[in-house]
């Protein structure tokens, strides 16, 4: 048995040095990136020459995916909805260093997105901006910020709008957000769930949606919905990271690092723009500018003191999101 084992290792070493190796990378991603990473994976496999690379992608709610990796899912690459979830992997499982977000350009986010409104055809309620969402009788669909990354961005976008309105402050922002969630009849656990509730079940008048998810809904069911850009939203930065301990164990570091760097190349940025993510590359962004209207965007680092602070203030147990559902407050 032992001899067979060492023979196998020797054979592995020989083929490894002689020719291209077969490398399989597991990319653990959040909910709406199915289409994006299918396209990016194929483009990368075609362009990367050192090894023969296959990229498998697993999709799910951002928080659930992070938990799966903490519990032992062998992710080589993480591409999640927000930095806090990768922070959690770093903190709870020690699979990558705490300063992972500094290792790649632009906060480790090759593309960005934002939160927009999806309304029904003809915009019957004339919804133009955030304050229209809290009018009498309007129903808003958005997932639960406790379980969905996109919902956390939507919550923060609403908060930033209320705080930045002339005369706004934290007190008024809290009241606005509390009022907004009174208009939410269903809190699904993930972004896709909410999209289904809004489109298939016919619930609600507005869906607070990822920009890319809204464009996808428009593309799949033309003529049924419209996208409304509010006067102010948030710069959503879904980061990417190589999971150090796992790539070292799988001997896949070279390919994994090449893949995350590839996401910043013009070829990849073009694919991201086509899948409705805002590319970082200014020239490619300019090329697709009709698709990505320029509206003022708040940032988590600038307006909320970074994800760790935003997480503990707003979304942790007993945080502001919990408080707005407590009776008598």
């Amino acid at each position: 048995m032992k001899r067979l084992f060492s023979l196998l290792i020797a054979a592995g070493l020989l083929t490894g040095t002689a020719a291209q190796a077969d490398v399989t990378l597991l990319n653990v991603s959040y909910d709406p990136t199915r289409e994006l990473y299918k396209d990016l994976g194929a483009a990368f496999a075609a362009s990367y020459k050192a090894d023969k690379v296959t990229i498998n992608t697993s999709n799910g709610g951002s928080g659930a995916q992070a938990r799966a990796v903490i519990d032992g899912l062998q992710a080589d690459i993480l591409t999640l909805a927000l930095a806090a979830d990768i922070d959690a992997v770093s903190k709870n499982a020690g699979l990558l260093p705490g300063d992972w977000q500094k290792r790649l350009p632009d906060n480790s986010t090759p593309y960005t997105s934002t939160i927009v409104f999806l309304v029904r055809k003809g915009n019957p309620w004339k919804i133009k901006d955030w304050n229209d969402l809290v009018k009498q009788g309007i129903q808003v669909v958005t997932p639960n910020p406790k379980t969905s990354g996109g919902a956390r961005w939507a919550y923060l976008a609403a908060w930033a709008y209320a705080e930045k309105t002339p005369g706004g402050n934290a007190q008024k922002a809290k009241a606005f957000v509390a009022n907004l969630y009174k208009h939410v009849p269903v809190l699904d656990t993930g972004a896709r769930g909410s999209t289904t509730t809004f489109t298939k079940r016919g619930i609600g008048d507005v869906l607070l949606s990822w920009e890319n998810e809204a464009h996808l809904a428009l593309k799949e069911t033309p003529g049924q919905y419209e996208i409304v850009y509010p006067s102010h939203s948030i710069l959503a930065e879904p980061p990417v990271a190589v999971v150090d301990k796992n790539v070292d164990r799988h001997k896949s570091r070279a390919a994994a690092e090449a893949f995350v760097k590839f996401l910043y190349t013009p070829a990849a940025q073009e694919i991201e723009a086509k899948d409705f993510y805002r590319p970082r590359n200014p020239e490619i962004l300019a090329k697709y500018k009709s698709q990505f209207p320029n509206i003022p965007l708040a940032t988590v680092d600038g307006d909320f003191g970074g994800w760790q602070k935003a997480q503990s203030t707003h979304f942790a147990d007993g945080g502001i999101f919990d408080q707005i559902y407590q009776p008598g407050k």
Partner: protein
Amino acid sequence: MSAIGLKIPLPRSRHVLPGFSLSLGFTLFYLAGIVLIPLLALVIRPFELGWDGFWAAISTPRVLASLRLSFGMSAFAAVIDSVFGFIVAWVLVRYRFPGRGFLDAVIDLPFALPTAVAGIALSTLYAPNGWIGSLLVPYGIRIAYTPWGVLVAMIFIGLPFSVRTLEPVLGEIGQEVEEAAATLGATRVQTITKVVIPMLMPALLTGAAMAFARGVGEYGSVIFIAGNIPMVSEIAPLLIVTKLEQFDYAGAAAIGVVMLAASFIMLLALNGLQAWSASRR
């Protein structure tokens, strides 16, 4: 395994068949491995919070509201399932009619269906634009995305438990007993309330207990139809999942322990009631 059994001093001559110690040893081993050790792991986890942390994790109004909803609706669903399960079982056992075999097979579907599929199907039906939901909208009744959605899902998944426990018992009773009651001068209502129901009571309670337990633990089908609004239509298992997604394993286990304890006490009470009603006959 037999070594465990040998140490238990019990009279051996009472059993006609051999193998008591072997089978008892196997039972203990199996129960420990499959049931007790995982439950023990669950119970140990919240201890890292300390007593104060444990109490803080389970005493928030939101957790209490979700526990009330989960246990209240499961109990309600178990009662409804018992009533309708009794009627369904009665029809299936007592009458012969075309399509009976088909109906009999349909009863088991909620067992076999993946819970998420059941949840999506139910929410499609009961949503305001669904077949049933759209009929109720003019009367101002909303089922999907309200606490009543939780009840509908729990009734659906609990029904087979009630029907399947009642069926064999009903089959055994036989019509002679009812005929005897009639010849002795009992009215129809008396026959049912004084003869049939008391004989069925243990099975009714078992079915209700199983439907109840299933409802308390149900996650997959309920979250699709509940609406999941905190304090209103959020079930306790969803709060457990929410806590897990925030990497709060101990807090999740704390709610789990409370549910485990409450379910255990209720099932024990139902078992006691069942034994009592069986001995009374």
